[in-house]
């Protein structure tokens, strides 16, 4: 059931499950955390009632989970977020859809939920769009972090650290533009407007790699990044890497 284009997925530490999409089959697969080999998923969300839709060229490649509120969040075409019950299985309708021009969500953008601050964040159009967690329909974001000082860029995943109220994503990344040096930044979920990031790791400057995925390891106060699709080839010529930085400042 697993195929290509898994560009963002999630581990649910509360329920010990792995949530990933099968984009070409318009499906969300949920595996046991200890799954190994050719193990079948414990649940599959797929079918006409799901409203799951990608595009010809991409999409359905990212998924997020909110284990506190028992929800799975799937970015869908033409620009929105479908929210399913975490325990959903089979051909089930979503609980809600966040989509429409007022949302400012363009395309299938990474999403994350901060259950402590009760916000849902979408990284879209060079911005962090911050919504009430249960926003649905054509809702406006309650705050938008965007602008030159903010440096907000787009990569495959964003993460939240609710304990400190951070949203962590890509920054200083403008493919093909002179001076672009992709990095990882942390903003406050309470920021709004052209807010400078509170913290930054200049990843490409330090490693030669441009980050594409992010995971957090709070116990060891570390951030883990995956790096792929390097438009600026790294000096060592190796095009795939997973890099771990100590980042105690954000934890």
């Amino acid at each position, binding site marked *: 059931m*697993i*195929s290509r284009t*898994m*560009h963002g*997925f999630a*581990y649910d*530490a509360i329920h*010990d499950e*792995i949530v990933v999409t*099968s984009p*070409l*089959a*318009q*499906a969300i697969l949920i595996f046991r*955390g200890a799954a190994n080999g050719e193990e079948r998923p414990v649940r599959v969300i*797929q*079918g*006409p009632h799901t*409203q*799951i*839709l990608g*595009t*010809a*060229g*991409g999409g359905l490649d990212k998924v997020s989970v909110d284990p506190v509120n028992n929800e799975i969040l799937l970015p869908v075409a033409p620009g929105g977020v479908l929210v399913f019950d975490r325990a959903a299985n089979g051909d089930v309708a979503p609980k809600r859809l966040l989509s429409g021009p007022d949302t400012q969500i363009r395309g299938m953008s990474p999403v994350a939920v901060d259950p402590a601050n009760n916000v849902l964040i979408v990284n879209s159009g060079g911005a962090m769009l911050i919504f009430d967690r249960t926003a649905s329909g054509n809702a406006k974001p309650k705050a938008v972090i965007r602008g030159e000082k903010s440096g907000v860029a787009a990569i*495959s*995943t964003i993460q939240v650290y609710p304990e400190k109220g951070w949203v962590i994503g890509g920054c200083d990344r403008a493919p093909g533009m002179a001076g672009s040096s992709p990095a990882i930044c942390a903003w406050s979920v309470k*920021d709004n407007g052209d807010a*400078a990031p*509170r*913290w*930054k*790791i*200049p990843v490409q400057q*330090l490693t030669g790699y441009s980050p*594409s*995925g*992010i*995971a957090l*390891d709070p*116990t060891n106060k*570390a951030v*883990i*990044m*995956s*790096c*792929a699709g390097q438009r600026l*080839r790294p000096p*060592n*010529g190796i*095009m*795939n*890497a*997973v*890099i*771990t*930085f*100590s*980042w105690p*400042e954000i934890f």
Partner: protein
Amino acid sequence: MGPSGDLQRPAAQNAGETGVTSRPPLRNILDTDPIYTSVAVDDMHDEVLLQDSNTWSIRVFNRLDNTPPNARATEPKRVISGSETDVQFNSCVYVDPKNGDIYSVENDIGDSIVVFSHDSNGNIKPLRKLKVTHRAFAMAVDEDTEELFLSVQYPPQIEVYRKMASGDEKPLRRLEGESTRLSDSHGIAIDTKNKLLFVNNWGNISDYKVAGTGRFESPSITVYPLKAGGDTPPVRVIQGPKTQLNWPGAMSINPDTRELFIANDVNSSILVFREADTGDVAPARVIKGNKTRLSNPTSVLVDTKHNELWVTNLGNSSATVYALGANGDVAPIRMIRSAPLDKVSLKFGKTQAVAYDSKREQILVPN
């Protein structure tokens, strides 16, 4: 100076200030050896070409190279790689038997076929570049009609171009549509003598224009007339549990015996079907086992001139060679290794995403 010796600006949690961390990474996970995904043999120059998806390169070896057991690796004669080459997410390599030109299919964001002259080496521009549909995977060429067949994973289709096409040139025809039963298409092979086209499919299906149409089928091989276009149904389908198909990769045909060879990635096997097979049928032969040194094979090539079968192994940085009639758990005749004999590759294809399993303290990386 920070507590771990790094230079950084003072703590900056206040609005308007940014604390920049400049300490080096704690750890890097990367594979320093090539990860081979495709193979081509150049009979004119007695060379073999291996497609490396880890460093985005095409590596050229002597056809009879055989890495000694105590050697770490065999060095290639030439390497085509670098930003000028446009080689990226390279999934298939083909050599023109008439002049030695090298064709490379660029998957993912590459979306092209780039062509190099035989003697190309280093970071050089391709002779020509053909833009193709996103998610192109494998190619085959009918050298009689000079038609180039290209599989596209999704939306699943077979595009047929002029062999010499370049730039934005459009395909001569497309095979696509619900009746074709194409689904997440990967390997492709053609039998020019019997005018047949073979495609393997992973069975991940949906109509990207209609929400909720996704479904799964078991993997299959679909067979069409060589000139098929439009929404043409297959003349035969090989599909079912007896077939053992599991993430099938490249395919190759022996026109003399009318056998179809499939690199069967997840099962670490090479499956051999008869061209006329249909339905839920077991392979006529299976090459599999510890002696074979097969490890996640993704590409296979029949060399009828030398009666040899070439395989690339994603899992151990090698290409292995067998007799064309090999069956069962047989040792390779030769092996070109680009890493030590006991190498277990990271199998990285595209490390776009990452997750952290805090319960097991494990990093999860999809490919």
